[in-house]
Protein backbone atom coordinates (compact mmCIF):
# COMPACT_ATOMS: atom_id res chain seq x y z
CA UNK A 1 0.00 0.00 0.00
CA UNK A 2 1.36 3.39 -0.99
CA UNK A 3 1.04 6.19 1.55
CA UNK A 4 2.83 8.98 -0.25
CA UNK A 5 3.29 9.12 -3.98
CA UNK A 6 5.19 11.71 -5.94
CA UNK A 7 3.98 11.87 -9.53
CA UNK A 8 6.02 13.70 -12.17
CA UNK A 9 6.97 16.56 -9.86
CA UNK A 10 8.85 19.47 -11.44
CA UNK A 11 9.67 23.13 -10.88
CA UNK A 12 11.66 25.77 -12.76
CA UNK A 13 13.45 28.78 -11.33
CA UNK A 14 14.10 31.55 -13.83
CA UNK A 15 13.77 29.20 -16.79
CA UNK A 16 16.06 26.55 -15.36
CA UNK A 17 14.52 23.24 -14.35
CA UNK A 18 15.57 22.67 -10.73
CA UNK A 19 13.55 19.46 -10.53
CA UNK A 20 12.17 17.66 -13.57
CA UNK A 21 9.54 14.93 -13.73
CA UNK A 22 10.43 13.05 -10.55
CA UNK A 23 8.21 10.16 -9.47
CA UNK A 24 8.45 7.63 -6.66
CA UNK A 25 6.38 6.37 -3.74
CA UNK A 26 6.73 5.63 -0.04
CA UNK A 27 4.94 2.91 1.94
CA UNK A 28 4.23 2.84 5.69
CA UNK A 29 7.22 1.70 7.72
CA UNK A 30 9.54 2.22 4.79
CA UNK A 31 12.61 4.48 4.74
CA UNK A 32 13.09 6.04 1.33
CA UNK A 33 16.16 8.20 0.82
CA UNK A 34 16.72 10.84 -1.82
CA UNK A 35 20.39 11.26 -2.64
CA UNK A 36 22.37 13.17 -5.23
CA UNK A 37 25.27 15.59 -5.56
CA UNK A 38 25.00 19.13 -4.20
CA UNK A 39 22.53 21.14 -6.21
CA UNK A 40 20.79 18.03 -7.53
CA UNK A 41 17.46 19.42 -6.33
CA UNK A 42 16.91 17.33 -3.21
CA UNK A 43 15.86 20.14 -0.89
CA UNK A 44 13.81 21.75 -3.65
CA UNK A 45 11.98 18.46 -4.08
CA UNK A 46 11.40 18.36 -0.33
CA UNK A 47 10.08 21.89 -0.29
CA UNK A 48 7.57 21.01 -3.01
CA UNK A 49 6.40 17.87 -1.23
CA UNK A 50 6.00 19.72 2.09
CA UNK A 51 4.05 22.62 0.60
CA UNK A 52 6.74 25.27 0.94
CA UNK A 53 7.10 25.63 -2.87
CA UNK A 54 4.30 25.28 -5.39
CA UNK A 55 5.36 22.69 -8.02
CA UNK A 56 5.28 23.76 -11.67
CA UNK A 57 4.07 20.33 -12.70
CA UNK A 58 3.09 16.99 -11.21
CA UNK A 59 1.20 15.92 -8.12
CA UNK A 60 1.79 14.94 -4.53
CA UNK A 61 -0.69 12.33 -3.34
CA UNK A 62 -0.98 11.58 0.36
CA UNK A 63 -3.09 8.59 1.33
CA UNK A 64 -5.11 8.85 -1.87
CA UNK A 65 -5.69 12.61 -1.59
CA UNK A 66 -4.12 15.17 -3.93
CA UNK A 67 -2.23 17.49 -1.57
CA UNK A 68 -0.12 19.30 -4.17
CA UNK A 69 0.95 22.77 -2.95
CA UNK A 70 -1.19 22.43 0.15
CA UNK A 71 -0.19 24.72 3.00
CA UNK A 72 2.13 23.01 5.53
CA UNK A 73 -0.33 23.46 8.40
CA UNK A 74 -3.00 21.58 6.45
CA UNK A 75 -0.49 18.86 5.55
CA UNK A 76 0.25 18.54 9.24
CA UNK A 77 -3.45 17.86 9.87
CA UNK A 78 -3.26 15.10 7.27
CA UNK A 79 -0.32 13.48 8.99
CA UNK A 80 2.71 14.84 7.14
CA UNK A 81 5.48 16.62 9.00
CA UNK A 82 9.07 17.57 8.24
CA UNK A 83 12.33 18.72 9.74
CA UNK A 84 14.70 21.25 8.23
CA UNK A 85 18.25 21.10 6.97
CA UNK A 86 18.97 24.51 8.47
CA UNK A 87 17.45 24.02 11.89
CA UNK A 88 14.10 25.64 12.56
CA UNK A 89 13.67 25.45 16.30
CA UNK A 90 11.96 28.05 18.45
CA UNK A 91 15.21 29.41 19.86
CA UNK A 92 13.95 31.49 22.76
CA UNK A 93 11.55 28.84 24.03
CA UNK A 94 12.56 25.95 26.27
CA UNK A 95 13.26 22.48 24.91
CA UNK A 96 10.04 21.29 26.54
CA UNK A 97 8.01 24.12 25.03
CA UNK A 98 9.47 23.38 21.61
CA UNK A 99 8.29 19.82 21.90
CA UNK A 100 4.87 20.81 23.26
CA UNK A 101 4.50 23.04 20.20
CA UNK A 102 4.44 19.83 18.18
CA UNK A 103 1.21 18.95 19.97
CA UNK A 104 -0.42 22.15 18.75
CA UNK A 105 -3.15 20.39 16.79
CA UNK A 106 -4.13 18.36 19.83
CA UNK A 107 -3.74 21.01 22.49
CA UNK A 108 -5.14 24.10 20.82
CA UNK A 109 -8.66 25.15 21.69
CA UNK A 110 -10.74 28.31 22.09
CA UNK A 111 -8.52 31.29 22.80
CA UNK A 112 -10.99 32.49 25.44
CA UNK A 113 -10.44 29.32 27.45
CA UNK A 114 -6.70 30.02 27.28
CA UNK A 115 -7.09 33.64 28.42
CA UNK A 116 -9.25 32.63 31.36
CA UNK A 117 -7.05 29.66 32.28
CA UNK A 118 -10.13 27.42 32.23
CA UNK A 119 -9.78 23.78 33.32
CA UNK A 120 -10.28 22.62 29.71
CA UNK A 121 -7.30 24.70 28.58
CA UNK A 122 -5.14 23.47 31.44
CA UNK A 123 -6.11 19.86 30.75
CA UNK A 124 -5.09 20.15 27.11
CA UNK A 125 -1.81 21.79 28.03
CA UNK A 126 -1.08 19.17 30.67
CA UNK A 127 -1.72 16.29 28.30
CA UNK A 128 0.59 17.87 25.73
CA UNK A 129 3.29 18.37 28.35
CA UNK A 130 3.13 14.73 29.43
CA UNK A 131 3.44 13.58 25.84
CA UNK A 132 6.30 15.99 25.23
CA UNK A 133 8.25 14.78 28.26
CA UNK A 134 7.82 11.21 27.11
CA UNK A 135 9.11 12.11 23.64
CA UNK A 136 12.09 13.97 25.09
CA UNK A 137 12.94 10.80 26.99
CA UNK A 138 12.79 8.85 23.75
CA UNK A 139 15.24 11.18 22.02
CA UNK A 140 17.41 11.48 25.13
CA UNK A 141 16.78 15.14 25.89
CA UNK A 142 14.71 14.78 29.07
CA UNK A 143 17.40 16.39 31.21
CA UNK A 144 17.54 19.45 28.98
CA UNK A 145 13.77 19.98 29.11
CA UNK A 146 13.85 23.31 30.94
CA UNK A 147 16.80 24.75 29.02
CA UNK A 148 16.41 27.39 26.37
CA UNK A 149 16.55 25.63 23.00
CA UNK A 150 19.12 28.12 21.69
CA UNK A 151 21.66 26.80 24.21
CA UNK A 152 21.67 23.20 22.94
CA UNK A 153 24.38 21.57 20.87
CA UNK A 154 23.80 21.05 17.16
CA UNK A 155 23.19 17.33 17.46
CA UNK A 156 20.72 17.87 20.30
CA UNK A 157 18.82 20.43 18.25
CA UNK A 158 18.54 17.90 15.43
CA UNK A 159 17.00 15.43 17.86
CA UNK A 160 14.75 18.13 19.27
CA UNK A 161 13.40 18.81 15.80
CA UNK A 162 12.67 15.12 15.34
CA UNK A 163 10.93 14.99 18.72
CA UNK A 164 8.79 17.97 17.78
CA UNK A 165 7.86 16.33 14.48
CA UNK A 166 7.05 13.04 16.24
CA UNK A 167 4.68 14.91 18.55
CA UNK A 168 2.33 15.23 15.60
CA UNK A 169 2.23 11.44 15.37
CA UNK A 170 2.77 11.77 11.63
CA UNK A 171 2.10 9.02 9.13
CA UNK A 172 4.73 10.48 6.83
CA UNK A 173 7.88 12.10 8.18
CA UNK A 174 10.19 14.10 5.92
CA UNK A 175 13.70 14.43 7.31
CA UNK A 176 15.98 16.93 5.58
CA UNK A 177 19.59 15.98 6.37
CA UNK A 178 18.93 14.94 9.98
CA UNK A 179 22.58 14.02 10.53
CA UNK A 180 24.20 17.01 8.80
CA UNK A 181 26.84 18.58 11.01
CA UNK A 182 26.62 15.81 13.59
CA UNK A 183 29.59 13.77 14.80
CA UNK A 184 29.76 9.99 14.45
CA UNK A 185 28.15 9.28 17.82
CA UNK A 186 25.32 11.72 17.22
CA UNK A 187 24.79 10.32 13.73
CA UNK A 188 24.46 6.84 15.12
CA UNK A 189 21.93 8.00 17.71
CA UNK A 190 19.84 9.66 15.03
CA UNK A 191 20.23 6.55 12.93
CA UNK A 192 18.67 4.38 15.64
CA UNK A 193 15.95 6.92 16.22
CA UNK A 194 14.92 6.95 12.56
CA UNK A 195 14.89 3.16 12.35
CA UNK A 196 12.75 3.03 15.49
CA UNK A 197 10.24 5.53 14.09
CA UNK A 198 9.99 3.61 10.84
CA UNK A 199 9.49 0.37 12.77
CA UNK A 200 6.42 1.92 14.37
CA UNK A 201 4.85 2.18 10.92
CA UNK A 202 5.71 5.73 9.91
CA UNK A 203 6.69 6.29 6.28
CA UNK A 204 10.01 8.13 6.22
CA UNK A 205 11.41 10.18 3.39
CA UNK A 206 15.00 11.15 3.97
CA UNK A 207 17.41 13.53 2.31
CA UNK A 208 20.91 12.81 3.56
CA UNK A 209 24.52 13.41 2.59
CA UNK A 210 26.00 10.79 4.85
CA UNK A 211 26.20 7.91 2.36
CA UNK A 212 27.08 5.32 4.99
CA UNK A 213 23.96 6.21 6.92
CA UNK A 214 21.81 6.16 3.80
CA UNK A 215 23.09 2.76 2.72
CA UNK A 216 22.64 1.39 6.21
CA UNK A 217 19.08 2.41 6.98
CA UNK A 218 17.27 2.90 3.66
CA UNK A 219 14.87 0.37 2.17
CA UNK A 220 14.77 2.25 -1.06
CA UNK A 221 16.93 4.94 -2.63
CA UNK A 222 16.05 7.56 -5.23
CA UNK A 223 19.02 9.20 -6.96
CA UNK A 224 18.74 12.71 -8.38
CA UNK A 225 21.19 14.48 -10.65
CA UNK A 226 20.58 17.90 -12.18
CA UNK A 227 16.99 17.70 -10.98
CA UNK A 228 16.22 14.40 -12.67
CA UNK A 229 15.80 10.94 -11.27
CA UNK A 230 18.63 8.85 -12.72
CA UNK A 231 18.14 5.70 -10.70
CA UNK A 232 16.18 4.05 -7.92
CA UNK A 233 16.16 0.77 -6.07
CA UNK A 234 17.47 -0.89 -2.94
CA UNK A 235 20.86 0.26 -1.59
CA UNK A 236 22.81 -2.61 -3.15
CA UNK A 237 21.32 -2.09 -6.62
CA UNK A 238 21.75 1.66 -6.55
CA UNK A 239 25.35 1.56 -5.39
CA UNK A 240 26.21 -0.72 -8.35
CA UNK A 241 24.37 1.42 -10.91
CA UNK A 242 26.92 2.87 -13.37
CA UNK A 243 24.92 6.09 -13.88
CA UNK A 244 24.92 6.69 -10.13
CA UNK A 245 28.62 6.01 -9.81
CA UNK A 246 29.34 8.39 -12.67
CA UNK A 247 27.03 11.19 -11.54
CA UNK A 248 27.29 11.00 -7.81
CA UNK A 249 30.13 8.97 -6.49
CA UNK A 250 32.24 9.78 -9.54
CA UNK A 251 31.68 13.47 -9.14
CA UNK A 252 32.61 13.21 -5.49
CA UNK A 253 35.79 11.27 -6.24
CA UNK A 254 36.74 13.78 -8.90
CA UNK A 255 36.13 16.63 -6.46
CA UNK A 256 38.14 14.87 -3.73
Amino acid sequence: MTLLSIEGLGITFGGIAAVKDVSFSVRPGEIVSVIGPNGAGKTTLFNMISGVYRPGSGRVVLNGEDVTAMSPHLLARRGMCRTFQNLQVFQSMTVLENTIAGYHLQESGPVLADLLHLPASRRRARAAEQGARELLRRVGLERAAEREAGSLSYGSLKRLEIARAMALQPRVLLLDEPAAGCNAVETEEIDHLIAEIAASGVAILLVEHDMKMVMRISNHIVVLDHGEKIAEGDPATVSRNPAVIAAYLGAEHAAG
Partner: protein
Amino acid sequence: MRLTTKTATLLALVALIALAPLFFPSAFYYRVGALIFVNGLAVTGIVILTGWAGQISLGHAGFAGIGAYACALAPVHLGLHPALAILLGAGVSAVLAWLVGRPILRLKGYYLGVASLGMGILISMVLNNERDLTRGPDGIDVPDLGLRAALKTAGLDLSNGEFWYALCGIVLVLGAWLALNLHDSPTGRALRALHGSEVAARTVGMDVPRLKLQAFVISAVYASVSGSLLALQNRFITPDVAGFMHSVEMVTMAVLGGVGSVAGAIFGAAVLTLLPQMLTVFAEYEQLVLGLVMVLVMIFLREGVVPSILRKLRGTGE
Protein backbone atom coordinates in the same frame (compact mmCIF):
# COMPACT_ATOMS: atom_id res chain seq x y z
CA MET B 1 8.62 25.53 45.31
CA ARG B 2 9.82 28.06 42.80
CA LEU B 3 7.57 30.97 42.05
CA THR B 4 6.34 31.00 38.49
CA THR B 5 6.73 34.20 36.50
CA LYS B 6 2.97 34.53 36.49
CA THR B 7 2.53 34.35 40.26
CA ALA B 8 5.57 36.52 40.91
CA THR B 9 4.42 39.20 38.48
CA LEU B 10 0.87 39.28 39.83
CA LEU B 11 2.01 39.34 43.48
CA ALA B 12 4.48 42.14 42.80
CA LEU B 13 1.87 44.10 40.89
CA VAL B 14 -0.80 43.78 43.58
CA ALA B 15 1.69 44.65 46.32
CA LEU B 16 2.94 47.73 44.45
CA ILE B 17 -0.55 48.97 43.71
CA ALA B 18 -1.69 48.43 47.29
CA LEU B 19 1.38 49.83 49.03
CA ALA B 20 2.37 52.73 46.77
CA PRO B 21 -0.25 55.13 48.23
CA LEU B 22 1.54 54.92 51.60
CA PHE B 23 4.37 56.86 50.02
CA PHE B 24 2.36 59.40 48.05
CA PRO B 25 3.46 62.96 48.91
CA SER B 26 0.10 64.33 47.76
CA ALA B 27 -3.29 63.22 46.50
CA PHE B 28 -2.17 64.20 42.99
CA TYR B 29 -0.22 60.94 42.79
CA TYR B 30 -3.41 58.89 42.81
CA ARG B 31 -4.06 60.43 39.43
CA VAL B 32 -0.52 59.71 38.22
CA GLY B 33 -0.91 56.14 39.41
CA ALA B 34 -4.20 55.71 37.59
CA LEU B 35 -2.59 57.05 34.39
CA ILE B 36 0.24 54.55 34.76
CA PHE B 37 -2.30 51.72 35.11
CA VAL B 38 -4.25 52.87 32.07
CA ASN B 39 -1.09 53.02 29.97
CA GLY B 40 0.14 49.76 31.47
CA LEU B 41 -3.04 48.08 30.28
CA ALA B 42 -2.60 49.24 26.69
CA VAL B 43 1.07 48.25 26.75
CA THR B 44 0.19 44.77 28.05
CA GLY B 45 -1.77 44.36 24.83
CA ILE B 46 1.33 45.42 22.89
CA VAL B 47 3.30 42.71 24.69
CA ILE B 48 0.89 40.07 23.41
CA LEU B 49 0.99 41.41 19.86
CA THR B 50 4.61 42.48 19.51
CA GLY B 51 6.48 40.66 22.24
CA TRP B 52 4.92 37.25 21.66
CA ALA B 53 3.41 37.19 18.19
CA GLY B 54 6.17 39.41 16.75
CA GLN B 55 3.75 41.73 14.95
CA ILE B 56 4.05 45.49 14.99
CA SER B 57 1.15 47.91 15.17
CA LEU B 58 1.67 51.63 14.69
CA GLY B 59 -2.00 52.46 15.01
CA HIS B 60 -3.02 51.07 18.37
CA ALA B 61 -4.02 54.52 19.61
CA GLY B 62 -6.85 54.27 17.09
CA PHE B 63 -8.38 51.52 19.23
CA ALA B 64 -7.86 53.64 22.35
CA GLY B 65 -9.71 56.39 20.48
CA ILE B 66 -12.60 54.05 19.73
CA GLY B 67 -12.79 52.98 23.37
CA ALA B 68 -12.64 56.59 24.57
CA TYR B 69 -15.24 57.98 22.16
CA ALA B 70 -17.53 54.99 22.75
CA CYS B 71 -17.76 56.18 26.36
CA ALA B 72 -18.32 59.77 25.28
CA LEU B 73 -20.92 59.08 22.60
CA ALA B 74 -22.80 55.86 23.35
CA PRO B 75 -24.35 57.07 26.64
CA VAL B 76 -25.61 60.25 24.93
CA HIS B 77 -26.72 58.87 21.59
CA LEU B 78 -27.62 55.28 22.39
CA GLY B 79 -28.59 55.73 25.99
CA LEU B 80 -26.07 53.08 27.05
CA HIS B 81 -24.67 53.00 30.56
CA PRO B 82 -20.98 54.09 30.41
CA ALA B 83 -19.92 50.68 31.72
CA LEU B 84 -21.65 49.04 28.77
CA ALA B 85 -20.09 51.66 26.49
CA ILE B 86 -16.68 50.23 27.50
CA LEU B 87 -17.84 46.84 26.22
CA LEU B 88 -19.27 48.38 23.07
CA GLY B 89 -15.97 50.16 22.37
CA ALA B 90 -14.08 46.91 22.95
CA GLY B 91 -16.44 45.09 20.61
CA VAL B 92 -16.10 47.70 17.86
CA SER B 93 -12.31 47.68 18.25
CA ALA B 94 -12.22 43.90 18.05
CA VAL B 95 -14.34 43.85 14.89
CA LEU B 96 -12.26 46.59 13.27
CA ALA B 97 -9.01 44.81 14.18
CA TRP B 98 -10.41 41.64 12.68
CA LEU B 99 -11.44 43.40 9.46
CA VAL B 100 -8.08 45.13 9.05
CA GLY B 101 -5.99 42.21 10.24
CA ARG B 102 -7.63 39.41 8.30
CA PRO B 103 -6.46 40.35 4.80
CA ILE B 104 -3.16 41.88 5.97
CA LEU B 105 -1.96 39.04 8.18
CA ARG B 106 -2.17 36.55 5.34
CA LEU B 107 0.85 38.35 3.91
CA LYS B 108 4.31 37.70 5.27
CA GLY B 109 6.37 40.58 6.58
CA TYR B 110 5.65 43.83 8.32
CA TYR B 111 2.55 44.88 6.40
CA LEU B 112 0.56 45.09 9.61
CA GLY B 113 2.70 48.03 10.71
CA VAL B 114 1.82 49.98 7.57
CA ALA B 115 -1.85 48.99 7.53
CA SER B 116 -2.35 49.78 11.21
CA LEU B 117 -0.59 53.12 10.74
CA GLY B 118 -3.09 54.01 8.03
CA MET B 119 -5.97 52.77 10.15
CA GLY B 120 -4.87 54.85 13.14
CA ILE B 121 -4.56 57.98 11.02
CA LEU B 122 -8.01 57.38 9.55
CA ILE B 123 -9.61 57.02 12.99
CA SER B 124 -7.84 60.14 14.18
CA MET B 125 -9.05 62.07 11.11
CA VAL B 126 -12.64 60.95 11.62
CA LEU B 127 -12.55 62.02 15.28
CA ASN B 128 -11.08 65.40 14.30
CA ASN B 129 -13.38 66.12 11.39
CA GLU B 130 -16.78 64.68 12.27
CA ARG B 131 -17.51 67.78 14.33
CA ASP B 132 -21.25 67.19 14.49
CA LEU B 133 -20.68 63.93 16.30
CA THR B 134 -17.33 64.30 18.07
CA ARG B 135 -17.05 68.11 18.43
CA GLY B 136 -13.70 67.86 16.62
CA PRO B 137 -10.28 68.80 18.02
CA ASP B 138 -11.72 70.74 20.96
CA GLY B 139 -12.74 67.50 22.59
CA ILE B 140 -15.94 66.28 24.15
CA ASP B 141 -17.33 65.73 27.64
CA VAL B 142 -17.65 62.18 28.91
CA PRO B 143 -20.47 61.12 31.27
CA ASP B 144 -19.82 59.95 34.80
CA LEU B 145 -19.33 56.21 35.24
CA GLY B 146 -21.55 56.44 38.33
CA LEU B 147 -19.74 53.66 40.17
CA ARG B 148 -18.19 55.97 42.77
CA ALA B 149 -21.58 57.30 43.79
CA ALA B 150 -22.90 53.74 44.00
CA LEU B 151 -19.98 52.75 46.23
CA LYS B 152 -20.65 55.76 48.43
CA THR B 153 -24.24 54.75 49.05
CA ALA B 154 -22.92 51.27 49.82
CA GLY B 155 -20.77 52.84 52.53
CA LEU B 156 -17.39 53.03 50.73
CA ASP B 157 -16.52 56.70 50.41
CA LEU B 158 -13.53 57.21 48.09
CA SER B 159 -12.16 60.46 46.72
CA ASN B 160 -12.21 60.77 42.95
CA GLY B 161 -8.45 60.16 42.81
CA GLU B 162 -8.61 57.12 45.09
CA PHE B 163 -11.51 55.65 43.18
CA TRP B 164 -9.83 55.81 39.79
CA TYR B 165 -6.55 54.63 41.24
CA ALA B 166 -8.30 51.56 42.64
CA LEU B 167 -10.46 50.84 39.61
CA CYS B 168 -7.66 51.19 37.04
CA GLY B 169 -5.38 49.18 39.33
CA ILE B 170 -7.89 46.35 39.48
CA VAL B 171 -8.42 46.38 35.72
CA LEU B 172 -4.66 46.35 35.15
CA VAL B 173 -4.21 43.35 37.45
CA LEU B 174 -7.03 41.62 35.60
CA GLY B 175 -5.45 42.45 32.23
CA ALA B 176 -2.07 41.21 33.41
CA TRP B 177 -3.65 38.02 34.74
CA LEU B 178 -5.33 37.32 31.39
CA ALA B 179 -2.11 38.01 29.48
CA LEU B 180 -0.04 35.81 31.77
CA ASN B 181 -2.62 33.04 31.43
CA LEU B 182 -2.27 33.35 27.70
CA HIS B 183 1.54 33.22 27.79
CA ASP B 184 1.73 29.63 29.02
CA SER B 185 -1.41 28.43 27.29
CA PRO B 186 -1.53 26.55 23.97
CA THR B 187 -2.35 29.79 22.13
CA GLY B 188 0.42 31.77 23.82
CA ARG B 189 2.93 29.04 23.08
CA ALA B 190 1.85 29.02 19.46
CA LEU B 191 2.23 32.82 19.23
CA ARG B 192 5.75 32.69 20.62
CA ALA B 193 6.56 29.76 18.36
CA LEU B 194 5.50 31.50 15.16
CA HIS B 195 7.56 34.49 16.27
CA GLY B 196 10.58 32.17 16.53
CA SER B 197 10.12 30.39 13.20
CA GLU B 198 7.09 30.86 11.06
CA VAL B 199 7.93 27.98 8.73
CA ALA B 200 8.39 25.57 11.63
CA ALA B 201 5.16 26.80 13.21
CA ARG B 202 3.33 25.95 10.02
CA THR B 203 4.87 22.50 9.77
CA VAL B 204 3.57 21.59 13.22
CA GLY B 205 0.08 22.53 12.08
CA MET B 206 -0.23 26.10 13.32
CA ASP B 207 -2.58 28.31 11.35
CA VAL B 208 -0.19 31.26 11.42
CA PRO B 209 -2.44 34.02 9.96
CA ARG B 210 -5.25 33.03 12.31
CA LEU B 211 -3.02 33.09 15.37
CA LYS B 212 -1.62 36.50 14.45
CA LEU B 213 -5.15 37.77 13.95
CA GLN B 214 -6.14 36.53 17.41
CA ALA B 215 -3.20 38.41 18.93
CA PHE B 216 -4.09 41.58 17.02
CA VAL B 217 -7.74 41.45 18.10
CA ILE B 218 -6.88 40.78 21.74
CA SER B 219 -4.38 43.62 21.84
CA ALA B 220 -6.93 45.95 20.22
CA VAL B 221 -9.35 45.18 23.05
CA TYR B 222 -6.67 46.04 25.61
CA ALA B 223 -6.05 49.40 23.91
CA SER B 224 -9.75 50.09 23.65
CA VAL B 225 -10.45 49.44 27.34
CA SER B 226 -7.45 51.59 28.21
CA GLY B 227 -8.90 54.45 26.12
CA SER B 228 -12.31 54.02 27.78
CA LEU B 229 -10.82 54.21 31.27
CA LEU B 230 -8.84 57.31 30.32
CA ALA B 231 -11.95 59.05 28.99
CA LEU B 232 -14.16 58.13 31.94
CA GLN B 233 -11.50 59.18 34.41
CA ASN B 234 -10.86 62.56 32.77
CA ARG B 235 -14.59 63.10 32.03
CA PHE B 236 -13.29 64.69 28.85
CA ILE B 237 -11.47 63.45 25.76
CA THR B 238 -9.82 64.94 22.68
CA PRO B 239 -8.83 63.20 19.42
CA ASP B 240 -5.20 63.22 20.65
CA VAL B 241 -5.98 59.91 22.35
CA ALA B 242 -6.11 58.36 18.86
CA GLY B 243 -3.11 60.30 17.53
CA PHE B 244 0.00 58.78 16.02
CA MET B 245 2.16 60.00 18.92
CA HIS B 246 0.04 57.99 21.33
CA SER B 247 0.64 54.84 19.25
CA VAL B 248 4.37 55.52 19.27
CA GLU B 249 4.22 56.11 23.02
CA MET B 250 2.64 52.68 23.57
CA VAL B 251 5.31 50.90 21.54
CA THR B 252 8.10 52.86 23.23
CA MET B 253 6.79 51.99 26.71
CA ALA B 254 6.73 48.32 25.77
CA VAL B 255 10.18 48.36 24.20
CA LEU B 256 11.71 50.28 27.10
CA GLY B 257 10.44 47.93 29.79
CA GLY B 258 10.77 44.73 27.77
CA VAL B 259 8.35 43.91 25.01
CA GLY B 260 8.38 40.19 25.82
CA SER B 261 7.43 40.62 29.46
CA VAL B 262 4.22 41.86 31.08
CA ALA B 263 6.11 43.15 34.13
CA GLY B 264 8.56 44.93 31.87
CA ALA B 265 5.85 46.57 29.84
CA ILE B 266 4.11 47.91 32.93
CA PHE B 267 7.45 49.18 34.21
CA GLY B 268 8.01 50.94 30.88
CA ALA B 269 4.55 52.48 31.10
CA ALA B 270 5.32 53.68 34.63
CA VAL B 271 8.61 55.33 33.65
CA LEU B 272 7.28 57.11 30.60
CA THR B 273 4.12 58.22 32.41
CA LEU B 274 6.06 59.53 35.40
CA LEU B 275 8.72 61.39 33.44
CA PRO B 276 6.49 64.16 32.09
CA GLN B 277 4.87 64.55 35.52
CA MET B 278 8.24 64.87 37.23
CA LEU B 279 9.95 67.06 34.69
CA THR B 280 7.69 69.70 33.28
CA VAL B 281 10.30 70.52 30.63
CA PHE B 282 9.85 66.97 29.37
CA ALA B 283 6.49 67.86 27.85
CA GLU B 284 8.20 70.11 25.31
CA TYR B 285 10.74 67.49 24.35
CA GLU B 286 8.49 64.46 24.64
CA GLN B 287 8.91 63.31 21.05
CA LEU B 288 12.67 63.78 21.28
CA VAL B 289 12.87 61.76 24.48
CA LEU B 290 10.68 58.97 23.09
CA GLY B 291 12.92 58.68 20.06
CA LEU B 292 16.04 58.73 22.20
CA VAL B 293 14.69 56.05 24.54
CA MET B 294 13.85 53.85 21.57
CA VAL B 295 17.33 54.18 20.07
CA LEU B 296 19.18 53.67 23.35
CA VAL B 297 17.16 50.61 24.31
CA MET B 298 17.69 49.06 20.88
CA ILE B 299 21.45 49.60 21.18
CA PHE B 300 22.08 48.72 24.80
CA LEU B 301 19.15 46.71 26.14
CA ARG B 302 17.56 44.88 23.23
CA GLU B 303 15.24 42.87 25.44
CA GLY B 304 14.20 45.91 27.46
CA VAL B 305 15.11 47.01 30.99
CA VAL B 306 13.28 44.43 33.11
CA PRO B 307 14.25 41.22 31.23
CA SER B 308 17.86 42.44 31.01
CA ILE B 309 18.02 43.04 34.76
CA LEU B 310 16.36 39.70 35.51
CA ARG B 311 18.85 37.92 33.28
CA LYS B 312 21.73 39.62 35.11
CA LEU B 313 20.29 38.62 38.48
CA ARG B 314 19.77 35.01 37.43
CA GLY B 315 23.21 34.95 35.89
CA THR B 316 24.86 35.82 39.21
CA GLY B 317 22.44 33.70 41.23
CA GLU B 318 23.30 30.45 39.54
